[in-house]
Structure formats: C-alpha cells, structure tokens
C-alpha cells in the first residue's frame, strides 16, 4: 500500500473539507473528540452549538491555524498536516477568527488594516488600491476608511474583517461566529454581502459557526455540535424533520442527550396584572455626551413596577450607557432619570440599595468562591449581620447553586455563572434589576432556565426588570421593548404591537425595518445590490521563500501601531535617554562634597593647619566644629557628617617635638563603598600633610630611600565617573530596551490574537520576524545617535576615536539585541512575562559578564563562557575603545566581526523556535 496515494487521493467531487477521527485536547480538557465529517464544496455550511463545544477549535484546524493532534484534516485536496500543502493552499483559504475584530489591529484605520492583508498576499500598489476601493464600496465602508478599527461598531468591525478575508479571493471562507454581538440590521447586511459574493463566485465554499439559530436556518448544510462531538448533520429542514421540531432552537435542544437537557421546559411568562401602575423607572429626555460624541440622545421611557422591559440594539448604540445612567454609575448630561419618582443622583447611596445590576460580561470576583461572592455583596449592601447567612442560603437554593457553593466562578459553566451573577444582583432584595446582556454566549437551555427565573421574579416578587439582549426570542418575552440605534430610541412598545404596527412577519424584520428608516438617506451604510465579481483571477506569487513586500507589510504595520501607542512609543524613543540620564547621574563613583567636622581639642596653628588641609581638598566640605563626643555622636547618627576628626590636646606641641601622636578619625560606615573611598581620601590627605611636615621638620633627608609612584589615569585623566560610565551604559541600554520592545511586539500579537494572521497567510517565519524586527532596529539606532549626542553635550564626555566604526558596530549590535528579543519572544506567551523576563535575561549577563566591571579575560568558568558569546562584551570594548581610547576599525575589526556573526545565528534560532501554527 502506497501511503502517498492514500494521502494525496483526490477528495470526493464536491468535498472541500474531509475530517477523519479528529481529536484535540487542551491539557486535560477534551475539546474535540473523534470528529469525522465530509463537507460539500460550493455551499454555506453552518456549525451550530453553544459556546465552548469545540466549534472554534474545529474551524482553526480546518484553517490550518492550529496544529493537528489526532486524526487527519484534508482541505482543498491535501493534507493540512503537511506544511507544504498548507503553504500552497493558504492563499485560497480565508479565516476570520471569533471575536469582534479579533484579527484586526485596533489602532490602524480601516484602510490600513485591509491594506496590510493585501500586502501579505503580495498585491502591488495598483492592485491593492483597486481591490480595497471595491471592497469598501461594496461593504459601505468607504466613508469610514480613515477611522481606527477600535472606534467602529461591532457590525462594522466584522465587515472590515470580511474585507480583509476577501482581499485575496479565497476559495474557502471560514467565519467563526461572525455575527455574535452584532445588531440585526448589520447581521442581515453581513449575510447579504456573503450571498452576493457567493453569487459572483459560485465555486466558493463558506464554513461558518454561529450561535443564532435564525441565521443557521438560512444555511445550506448544518453540523450540530455539543461537547466536542458532532450531534447531527444535514440541511436545516432535515434536522427539524428528524426531531419533529418547529424551530431550529427546539430541534437543537431535542438533539441533545437526555442528561444535558435536564428538565427543560419552554419558558412560560404569565400575563402581568394590570393593576400595578406605579412607575418604577422613568427616563425623561436623557442625554449623555462623551466630549463631542453623543452616546445617548434624548431618550425617554417609563417602566412600570413589575414589568420586564427589553432593550434592543447593536453594540455601541447606547444601551449600556443608558443603563449606567439609571444605576447612577454615570452622571447625566441632560434630562433626568427617576426611580420611583425620586431623581437619581450619581452620588446617592440610597438609590443603589434599590437596584440590582448585572454588567455586561461576567464580572464577579473569580478569586472568591460562590459563597464568598454572595457574602461580600451582602456585607457591602449592609445587610444586618444576623440575616446574612440565611439570605445567602435562600439565594443559593433559589438560583440552584447548592452543588457549587465552594467552587470558584471560573470553574463553572457560563450558564451557572450567569445565575450566580443574578443571585449576587438580587442579594439585597432590590426592587429593580438592571441586566446588561445577561445571556450572551449562554447556550439555549441555560438561557431558558435564566428567563424562567426572571419571569418568576417579575410576576411573583413584582421586581421590575430592565434587560438588554441581542436575541429576538428573548425580546419577544418582554412586556415591552425599546429599539435603540445610535443613541436614540426608535420605538418603544409591546413586541406584538411593534410587529403589527410595522406589518412585519417577525420582530426581527420589524426591527430591521425601523433601523433602515432611521439610517434613511444614508445609502453608504447599506450594501450594494451585487458585489462586483473579480475581473480575473490574479496571478499569485506562490509562496516564494522570501518576499520583501510581505516582510515590509509587517514592518509598516508594526511602525504604525507603535506610533499610536503612547506608552510604548515613549519608552522606545525616550526610555534610553531617560535611563542614561538617571544612571549617569545616579551611579556616580565620584565622591565629592563629603561632609566632615573637626573636634579640635588643641586649637593651635598646627592643628588648624591640619583641618585646613582637609577642608582645602575638593572632596570635603567642612561643617561647624564638633563640641564634644555627644555632639559628634548625634551628628553622625543623623548623617550630617561623614567624617569626624579628633585632634588631641597638645597636638601641635607633640608634632613639633617629634613625639608620637594619634589623631582620631571616624568615618560613617553605613554605606561601605563610600566609607572605603572616604577612608582612602582621608589617608591620602594625611600622608600628604605628613610629607609636607616631614620636609619642614627634617628637610631633604625625608626623601631618602623613597620612590615615586607616577599614576597615569588613562583615557579619562580626570577620573570623572560620567566619562567612564556613559560608554559603558550605552551598550546596556541598547540591549535592554530594544530586546524588550522586540519581544513585546511578537508576544503582543500572541496575546491579543492577531498572531493568527501569521498562521493563515503566506507570510514566512523569516519575513514575519525580520518585518517585526526592522522598525525596532531603526528605532534603536536612532536611540543610539540620541544617546551619543546626549553623552557628548549634556555629560560632556569627549569622543576620541572613529565615529564611523562606532556607528557601524552599533547598527550590528542593535540588530543582534533585537534578535535576542525575538528569540525570547518565541517561548513567552504573556506580555508581562516577556517584559520582565527579557529585562532579567538581557541585563544580568550584560552587567555581570560583559566586561563592564571586570574584563571578560579575568572572569572564570560559566561567567567567562557567557561573556565570550554575549554581544554586549564586544560592544563594550568597541564603545570604550572608540569613545575614550581613540581607537578605530584597525584595532576593533575582530569585535565587529564577532557582532556580525551573531546576527544570523540569533535570527536562525528564533525562526526555528517560532511556530507557524497554534498548539
């Protein structure tokens, strides 16, 4: 049996993806288990199922973004385990990961984002501008081309993501929950866009995962997944027919195994008693501005006590802001809000006692257990101490948390966590619950369970519930809903009434109708009828080993991002100068202006002469004479004087007579380094004085038998600290900061998720690494020039040697040090670890073993070995050689050569360690 034939066998006609026995584990968690599937080509395939069932993992495997652990994955006629096949097909696959704008760069504009992808796929300038213009026009994004991606609404982000995915005309489009968190209109536009693209390119296959069953109903083929396994496959009609359900939601619930379904029942909300007409929440022309941006614009509504009031709208339409104003979290810019007729004052604590609030996303303390969370909130709401335990038990029982009281929230499934959040929000028995998208990401069964609780709270306990949601079936359960768009309320009424008023078939259609009216004349925002089909399939530069344009795409992008990140940019540009300043002044070995005082018990001409000798030295500053021992003790303890001299009574007389005299001297030993210096200064001054006295007393005989030690301080005749420090610190700074920045650049991509663009585009490892490195090499070199200029001007360090040699060496050195950052980045996954790790890894050898203190030649053992291979050793020699010793290329060429050799070695190491797929 020839394995090549088996692996390379053509897939069945019309099969775009074939999975066989695919399994995947993250540590102990089994994400996928024995998945075997055959996906037809040329159609839209939906992957349905709640969060965390393995949909994203499966899509990442198909896209080639994740390494295959078990089984085989065949995509577009080849095995995705083969890196050659992946390289060949990646220009034909487009992958949009989960999360709004996950693979976009937030500070880059819409145009810059799409342009980056165009460059990665090797399009030239003309080609890119043609394609980008077309994509922007078709998606209605043209007016927003210059807006940074982070300032877009969720729907727009997803459209930009789609543009990025489509720029290279893929045959297979993989979309991971592209519409989660997007408003219905944007969602519809998104799917219209996909449909028009598909009509232009009928051969294209689309695989998409979604949590919205309404959407899934429109797809050609569905795969229902749960707990890492496939539950069923088939067309939507087939699935409904097989389970005998009316809706896909129900069909999915019925497909679940009995144990997962639990005692699921449909949510039934009894009608409200009409006699509660007390107004619980009242918003009256509420407006909120952030600078010149109007987040909420003239919103008014009234919510009656016990009512369930729903808020619908896209991300960023002002729902959350409105809710925050009602809770008193945000002050109101205009208008007013009242709870039970009482105006809300942002500082008023009594309002908060009446409100329970669940913010968007899970926001409980993950470091506290379920009981501890409840307890903390009970105490903060100032519940009477004796009732707290009872209340917690009650909440635990009511919200079905009995089994998990000691668990940490992170260990719980999402549905349970949401119930815990609700229990926390209810702990102080508020009259009003404000819930901001409480069910996003929760599976249908848990959502129903959650709504059942809400229904009870509203109907039995008469709690007023103000809830925002993206799900239409949840909106339909509300007594009344408001549709919001761009800070304004479009309509506010009972769901049935809204549908009737609009004459629409479903609430979703009614909502879309209102949204379209609101957007009105703004034709740019709605998609064009048909997307222009690509003129001709472009010629592709098939994965050359090294492509300069792809590399520069990364360089350009990294430079743009850095420019827009104030903290990183400051560190990159000014960090090294700041540190040179600090270290140059801070680590000074010059000991000057040392304070001393004299306890002169003799007070004769000779004793005063002795004091004057010290005071005359430039190192010492004389303080007021010491009165007695107590004074000496007190002033030394305070640190006022560092050296105390006691001249004994009869000092002058004894000296004149040549009798033995002892002068007492005390130095402050608190700082031993300084004390040693002090001591040697004092001794030197004493010796000079002695020699002088000797000549006075004994004449020329004094020099008999003596010798002279001629001290030559080379390279730095004044022995100034800064002159010596600056050429030593520059190499230190040029390794630490550039390495940190280069490491952060790569690790940041990993942490934020945009590394996936490297996984699924044709960019090679070397292109990626060099592209990321280049801006930092340029920056570091600019830093080098700045540092030298600073040393020459501010510190006044003379430069004696060949600057050209120094500059060439610096360029080689910073290339090597940024490459060290890249090597470190390959085994770091979080930015904070990369940051401190890189500082430690680079600084210790640089300070200890690179000849900064002791020459490498005098080191021993491991220290010497590190010193010999570490670039800083060579650059320190060059730096001191050119700066202070007046050397040039002739003497230093070997050190330059050593630096040059390290660069390819380091780059090759990082390229080998970098993974082209997620593990």
């Amino acid at each position, binding site marked *: 049996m020839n394995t090549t034939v088996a692996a390379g066998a053509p897939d069945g006609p019309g099969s775009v993806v074939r999975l066989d026995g695919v399994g995947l584990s993250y540590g102990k968690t089994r994400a996928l288990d024995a998945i075997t599937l055959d996906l037809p080509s040329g159609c839209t395939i939906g992957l349905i199922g709640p969060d965390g069932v393995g949909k994203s993992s499966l899509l990442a495997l198909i896209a080639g973004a994740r390494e295959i652990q078990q089984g085989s994955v065949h995509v577009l006629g080849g095995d995705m385990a083969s890196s050659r096949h992946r390289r060949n097909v990646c220009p034909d696959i487009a992958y949009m990961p989960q999360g709004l704008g996950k693979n976009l760069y937030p500070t880059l504009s819409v145009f810059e984002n799409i342009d980056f992808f165009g460059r990665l796929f090797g399009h030239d300038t003309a080609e890119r501008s043609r394609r980008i213009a077309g994509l922007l026009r078709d998606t209605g994004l043209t007016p927003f081309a210059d807006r940074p991606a982070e300032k877009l609404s969720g729907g727009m982000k997803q459209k930009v993501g789609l543009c990025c995915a489509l720029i290279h005309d893929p045959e297979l489009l993989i979309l991971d929950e592209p519409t989660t968190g997007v408003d219905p209109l944007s969602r519809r536009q998104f799917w219209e866009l996909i449909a028009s693209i598909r009509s232009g390119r009928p051969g294209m296959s689309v695989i998409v995962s979604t949590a919205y069953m309404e959407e899934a109903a429109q797809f050609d083929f569905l795969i229902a997944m749960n707990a890492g396994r496939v539950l069923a496959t088939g067309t939507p009609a087939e699935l409904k027919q097989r389970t005998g359900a009316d809706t896909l939601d129900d069909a999915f619930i019925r497909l679940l195994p009995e144990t997962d379904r639990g005692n699921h029942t449909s949510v039934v909300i009894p009608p409200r008693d009409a006699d509660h007409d007390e107004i619980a929440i009242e918003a009256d022309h509420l407006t909120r501005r952030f600078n010149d941006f109007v987040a909420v614009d003239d919103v008014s509504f009234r919510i009656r006590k016990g009512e369930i009031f729903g808020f619908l709208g896209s991300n960023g339409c002002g729902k959350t802001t409105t809710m925050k104003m009602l809770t008193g979290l945000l002050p109101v810019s205009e208008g007013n809000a009242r709870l039970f007729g009482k105006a809300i004052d942002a500082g008023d604590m*009594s309002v*908060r006692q009446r409100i329970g609030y669940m913010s*968007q996303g899970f926001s*409980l*303390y*993950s*470091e506290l257990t379920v009981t501890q969370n409840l307890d*903390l909130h009970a*105490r*903060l*709401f*100032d519940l009477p101490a004796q009732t707290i335990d009872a209340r917690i038990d009650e909440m635990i029982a009511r919200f079905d948390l009995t089994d998990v009281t000691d668990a940490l929230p992170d260990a719980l499934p999402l549905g349970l966590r949401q119930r815990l959040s609700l229990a926390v929000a209810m702990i102080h028995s508020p009259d009003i619950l404000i819930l901001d998208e409480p069910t996003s990401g929760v599976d249908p069964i848990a959502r129903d369970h959650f709504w059942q609780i809400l229904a009870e709270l509203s109907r039995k306990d008469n709690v007023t519930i103000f809830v925002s949601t993206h799900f239409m079936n949840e909106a339909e359960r509300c007594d009344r809903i408001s549709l919001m768009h761009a800070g304004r309320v479009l309509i506010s009424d009972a769901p049935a009434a809204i549908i009737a008023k609009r004459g629409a078939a479903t609430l979703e259609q009614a909502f879309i109708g209102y949204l379209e009216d609101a957007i009105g004349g703004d034709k740019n925002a709605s998609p064009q009828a048909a997307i222009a089909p690509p003129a001709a399939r472009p010629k592709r530069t098939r994965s050359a080993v090294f492509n300069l344009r792809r590399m520069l795409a990364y360089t350009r992008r990294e430079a743009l991002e850095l420019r827009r990140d104030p903290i*990183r940019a400051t*560190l990159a540009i000014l*960090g090294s100068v700041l540190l040179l300043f*600090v270290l140059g002044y*801070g*680590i*000074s*070995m010059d*000991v000057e202006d040392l304070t001393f005082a004299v306890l002169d018990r003799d007070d004769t001409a000779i004793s005063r002469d002795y004091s004057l000798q010290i005071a005359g030295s430039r190192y010492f500053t004389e303080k007021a004479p010491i009165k007695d021992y107590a004074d000496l003790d*007190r002033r*030394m*303890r*305070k*640190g006022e004087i560092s050296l105390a001299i006691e001249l004994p009574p009869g000092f002058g007389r004894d000296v004149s007579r*040549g009798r033995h*005299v002892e*002068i007492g*001297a*005390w130095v*402050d030993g*608190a*700082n*031993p380094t*300084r*004390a040693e210096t002090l001591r*040697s200064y004092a001794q030197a001054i004493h010796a000079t004085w002695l020699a002088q006295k000797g000549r006075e*007393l004994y004449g020329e005989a*004094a*020099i*008999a*038998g*003596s*010798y002279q*030690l001629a001290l030559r301080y*080379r390279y*730095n005749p004044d*022995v100034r600290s800064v002159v010596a*420090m600056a050429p*030593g610190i520059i190499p230190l700074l040029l390794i630490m900061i550039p390495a940190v920045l280069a490491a952060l650049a790569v690790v940041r991509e990993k942490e934020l998720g945009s590394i996936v663009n490297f996984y699924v585009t044709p960019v090679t490892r070397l292109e990626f690494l060099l592209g990321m490195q280049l801006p930092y090499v340029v920056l570091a070199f600019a830093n080098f020039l700045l540092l030298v200029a600073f040393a020459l001007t501010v510190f006044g360090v003379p430069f004696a040697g060949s600057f050209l040699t120094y500059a060439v060496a610096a360029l080689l050195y910073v290339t090597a040090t940024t490459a060290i950052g890249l090597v470190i980045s390959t085994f770091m996954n979080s930015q904070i670890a990369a*940051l401190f790790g890189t500082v430690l890894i680079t600084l210790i050898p640089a300070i200890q073993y690179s000849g900064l203190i*002791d*020459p490498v*030649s005098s080191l021993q053992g491991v220290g010497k070995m590190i010193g010999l291979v570490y670039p800083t050793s060579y650059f320190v*020699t060059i730096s*001191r*050689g050119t700066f*202070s*010793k007046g050397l040039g290329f002739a003497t230093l060429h070997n050190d330059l050569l050593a630096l040059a050799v390290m660069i390819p070695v380091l780059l090759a190491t990082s390229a080998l360690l970098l993974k082209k797929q997620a593990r």
Partner: protein
Amino acid sequence: MRLGNLIQLGIKELRGLARDPMLLVLIAYSFTLAVYEGANTLPETLNRAAIAIVDEDHSPVSTRIAMAFTDPYFSTPRLISQYEMDRRMDAGLDTFALDIPPDFQRDLLARKAPSIQLNVDATRISQAFNGSGYVEQIVGAEIAEFLARTREAQTPPIDLALRARFNPELKRSWFGAVDHLIMSITMLSIILTGAALIREREHGTIEHLLVMPVTPLEIMVSKVWSMGAVVLVASTLSITFVVKGWLAVTIDGSVALFLLGAALHLFATTSMGIFLATVAGSMPQFGLLLIMILLPLQTLSGSMTPRESMPQFVQDIMLAAPNTHFVLLAQAILFRGAGLEAVWPQLLALTLIGVVFFLIALRRFRDFLA
C-alpha cells in the same frame, strides 16, 4: 467612608492576592532571596582585578612587587613587555599596568627616588580609584619592607587612627541587605496595588462595585491599606528573620520606628500604584511604566550611591520622591541607630508627600471611574 466597607473590601483584596500565585511568589522572593542575594552579590570594588606588570628591572625588589598581588583583590599579574602594554590596555584586557623601570632597585638604594609608573584604565571607574590606592599601598609596603634594614625616620610619627562607625568591618552585606529590603518595599507596594486595580478593571468587577453603596474613596483606601499591610508584614518578617536572623546584620536602631517610616512611605507608594494603574490600563503597559518610573526612583534616591555626588538639581527634584526620605530614614535608623529626634523631618516629609500623592491618585481614580 464606612469602616465596614473598608474592612470587607480590604479582605476581598487579600483573598484576591491569595489566589494569585505569581504575585505570592514575587512577594516571597523579594523579601527573602532577593534580600539575601542583595547582601551577598554586591560586588566588592576590587575583585580579581586584572593587572599586568612590565618588569624592566628584574631585580629582587621588582620580583617582590610582582609577587605581592594576589587573590581576592587582584588576579595573578601577567608579566608583559612594554610594547604589549598599550595594546592590551587598548583592548581592555588589563585594568592596571605597573611599569617598573630599568635599574629601579639600584636607584632606590642610591636614594635617587626613582619612579614607578602605574597605568590605570580609568574607563573602569569603579576599580580605578580604589584599585590604584591598593596598588600604591601594596607597592609601598613591599618597598618599605625591602628597605627595612636601612630605614630611618622620614616622617613625623603621627598616626591616623581611622575607624568606621556603625559597620566597623565595612561589611557590604549589611548595606546590600537593607538596600534591597528598601527596594522590595517600594517595588512591591506599587506592583501590588497597581495589579489589584488592573485585575478589577480587566475582570470588569470595578464597575460592579460602583453600583453598590461604596464610594471610590472607599475602594481606593481599601486597596491602599490591604496591599500596604501585606508589604508591611512581609517587611517585618524579612527584617526579623532574613536581615537579622539569616544574614546576622547588627541593627542598632528601633525596628518599630523604621516600620512606622515604612508605613508612611507605603501610603505614598501605594497611591502611586493606583495612579500608574489608571494611566496604564493594562498589565503590559503598567509594566512598561514601571520600568520608567522605578529605576529612576531607586537609583536617584540615594540608596545605591550617596545623594551628595549627584548634581544639585537632581537632588532637588528627588526631594519630591518618597524614596529619598525613606532611604535617609532607613539608613539613619537601621545603621546609625538614630531615634525619633533625628528622623522626624523625614517622617514629616513622608507624611506630606503621602497625603499629596494620595489626593492626586484619588482625583485621578475618580476621573478614571467616570
């Protein structure tokens, strides 16, 4: 401000910290091993310094001098030619080169006062000055001994009895240990409070707190007291068991007074942690800020090198930093046994700086929450 809330929120912070293994390891390390290492790895100014000797005399005296340089201060001298000397010094291979001229011994005995040349690579500043002092002493001693038989009175018999106070043997480990303890206190207090705020922000819990009947002031005070307390307890343990116990450093002054100073210092630094966290927003950005803030703070505070050798304007600016006063206070109390009468100006300064920092941070924190 309700005391109950402060306690509850503070306990919550402590529980949160207890579940963060990375930070716990960092605390444990900073107050034990880092202090111990700080005590033992502070480099001696002269440690196996590289010295070369150009012996053009080849006499008993010159040999004697060459033999006198030994471990631990000097590495075994390399005997080189005069031609080699310049080259080797240029290449940075030797820090000291001693050139003994021809006929040195003869001239010495003939009372011609010959001269020896000592070349010092002054780019290695840390060794240049003290090192040349040692070389001078060693050479002087050897020659004196050689001349002992012909020795006669040359200088008046006046001795300088030099004693070091507070640390008579000038043990570096004492200084290093306390220096590192001070550094750990500053670093940890900023990191812990900063991380506590960023953790809340990243988890979205800060918003949650605000809908409850708690004020921003309460939230901030609870972080300040809880994280400050952790650092204070860790410092107490560290000074008792690591500094006094393990490293056997003699502490003259009152530890309680030092801890009072530390508490005031923490008031300022924890506020700084809050401030930086509101500026940074995410952990990585916080880390970058920390590098740019901590290094100057510690280097220029006078803990490593004395303040008086810094330019006046740096000294003046650094008066606004709590570290400067804390370092002065800590060194005065722990090394020199100073009491309240000596350190009250520092205590006062720390209180003032703490209040100002706290108010600035509170203001910033309120804006940040809005």
